């Protein structure tokens, strides 16, 4: 068991608090799979990548696991197998058949110069997947170009993993006395026609970090605030273009990396959300007004006290004796209902920012860019993932609807702000 903080490698792991809910809601549309990829300056050799993957996966024993069904909960069972390197697929973030035997909860795909790690949220969050990708890239480049200098900060095969990397930090840091958070009303959802189940369309916009910083500074905000405000603006335009009866508050899920707040070193899920909102029923918000609201909301909500309410609610539900005694077969439908009734219902879209990727100079010269595609959502039909490397920031929209109107309004707004945007679809 790893419930107690920083236990050693036990051969099996309980799912962390956030990961417990995902096996119950997995479907063709809600795959819970996101993707972090790197584009190199040269074509990827699949054989060398497979060798690197076999070596690196042993450094992350908590990722070298299969999902197993217990009587009360799912759990992760350690295996000696290594995942295969797969060719890239047309539609990213496809469902991982994680409940089948012999299926890893992450997969590595290669195509031309790109290597991608697609990972289920059951296993880890974006930070964990990015750390794994960096370790994989380091090992791969090491094998091709000789030992790389300065890769000390990147996990290396053969190193013993820190036991704290596999801990459930939610359980470690939650506050028993924190009151539950306020319940949120149903948010505005896009009414566009959906693509067939399993189809996920991605559009990526490439922007200059310097230009974005300059534009954000004009509003006294951060890059993340500015991007969130542009997404709010796009959703507001969509909401106001629809019937007035469908107008509801527009809320964005903005994940907060709790490792920075609590100083945790876990590589499993340790992310919660902040949910800034605007309510177009009160009137149309100007862009400056949106930036200001988002900036102040995020500043106020991203601290240890504000996240304790959400964290405590989730952990208390997990620790509840009645919940623990319910067999898994009954838990799954309950989790399904609860997730859609209280989770996605309250949000219109999401904006996940993995931040700036830093690599040692010896590695960075072989890497052109990074991309991050968020997991598709059933209700939040268009989601946004942001990642930056060097002087470029990649903003990827994944959508399960036919219309790319949100993306169009979003990028057009950035162009209006004087930020050149290059779009790849």
């Amino acid at each position: 068991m790893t419930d107690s903080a920083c236990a050693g490698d036990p051969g099996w792991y309980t799912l962390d608090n956030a990961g417990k809910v995902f096996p119950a809601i997995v479907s063709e549309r809600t795959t819970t799979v996101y993707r972090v990829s790197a584009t190199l300056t040269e074509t990827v050799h699949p054989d060398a990548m497979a060798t690197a993957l076999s070596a690196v996966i042993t450094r992350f024993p908590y990722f070298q696991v299969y999902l197993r069904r217990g009587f009360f909960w799912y759990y992760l069972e350690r295996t000696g197998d290594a995942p295969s390197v797969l060719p890239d697929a047309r539609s990213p973030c496809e469902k991982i058949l994680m409940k089948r035997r012999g299926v890893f909860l992450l997969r590595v795909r290669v195509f031309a110069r790109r290597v991608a790690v697609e990972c289920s949220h059951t296993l880890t969050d974006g930070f964990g997947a990015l750390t794994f990708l960096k370790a994989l890239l380091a090992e791969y480049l090491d094998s091709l170009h000789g030992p790389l200098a300065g890769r000390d900060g990147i996990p290396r095969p053969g190193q013993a993993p820190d036991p704290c990397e596999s801990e459930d930090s939610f359980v470690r840091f939650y506050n028993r006395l924190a009151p539950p958070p306020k319940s949120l009303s149903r948010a505005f959802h896009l009414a566009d026609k959906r693509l067939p189940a399993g189809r996920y369309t991605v559009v990526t916009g490439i922007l200059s970090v310097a230009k974005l910083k300059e534009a954000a500074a004009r509003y006294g905000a951060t890059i993340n605030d500015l991007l969130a405000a542009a997404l709010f603006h796009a959703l507001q335009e969509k909401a106001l273009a629809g019937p007035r009866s469908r107008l509801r508050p527009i809320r964005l899920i903005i994940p907060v990396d709790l490792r920075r707040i609590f100083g945790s070193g876990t590589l499993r899920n340790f992310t919660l959300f902040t949910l800034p909102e605007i309510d177009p029923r009160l009137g149309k918000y100007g862009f400056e007004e949106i930036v200001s609201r988002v900036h102040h909301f995020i500043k106020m909500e991203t601290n240890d006290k504000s996240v304790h309410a959400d964290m405590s609610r989730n952990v208390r539900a997990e620790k509840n004796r009645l919940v623990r005694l319910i067999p898994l077969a009954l838990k799954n439908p309950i989790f399904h209902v609860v997730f859609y009734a209280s989770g996605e219902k309250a949000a219109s879209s999401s904006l996940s920012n993995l931040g700036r990727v830093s690599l040692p100079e010896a590695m960075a010269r072989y890497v052109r860019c990074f991309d991050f595609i968020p997991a598709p959502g059933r209700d939040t039909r268009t989601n946004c993932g942001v990642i930056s490397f060097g002087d470029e920031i990649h903003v990827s929209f994944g959508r399960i609807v036919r219309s790319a109107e949100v993306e169009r309004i979003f990028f057009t707004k950035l162009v209006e702000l004087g930020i050149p945007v290059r779009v790849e679809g």
Partner: protein
Amino acid sequence: MPYCWKCGVQLEESARSCPLCAAPVPRLAEPGAADASGKPADLDRPVDTLASIGRRHPYQLWMIVSVPFLTALLIVLSLSLRMEQFPAWGWYAAGSVVAGWAVVSLFLVIARFPVPALCGMGLTTAALLFFFDLLDAGPAWFLPLALPIVLAGCLFTIAITFLFAAKGPKGLHSIGFTFLAAAVFCLAVDCIVTLRFAGAIDPRWSLVAGSVLVPFALLFILLHYAFKRRVRFQRYFHR
């Protein structure tokens, strides 16, 4: 680097259309370059890009649909011929299958031209009824009864089709106009039937049917136009 002329974003070199708004990326052909058909590209004349969109192949579908009809006809005929005397039900069944095939064929082949398609369906129905009348000891009820009812049905269907084409098929008013046409059709059928059997026009039951249909029809039409003009009920029906 090409730009989207609608969104203002840069696109990939290989992009043919904008991934955001689907606007095509304008590209000039090389001087003297030929298109896929081998003809030189003519930059002065606009190209009918819509011509190739939505082109259907009704004849292929018609051939596929004809197979079950033909199979049914062959089964009916072979079963009938196995019996000592060709039975009457065989004619009825065979006639119905042929008429069904004709109606489906009309829909598939000339569905884009509603009036000829509807007239064709009316003619097929009339021909089938005439055929049944002949089987039933010579022509008796076709001319005074079946033909006028089929004609009335065709006329009302064509009228409704024109109305929908002119006003647009969406909205509550389409239900209203259909109800009105149904009421008028009931009246016509009632007149024809009573004239044939009682010798005089006596449209009693169609008036009962009409008294139900017409108020609903008017309500739907009123609601449609009230909503369309954004008339508020409170204001519209104030006391």
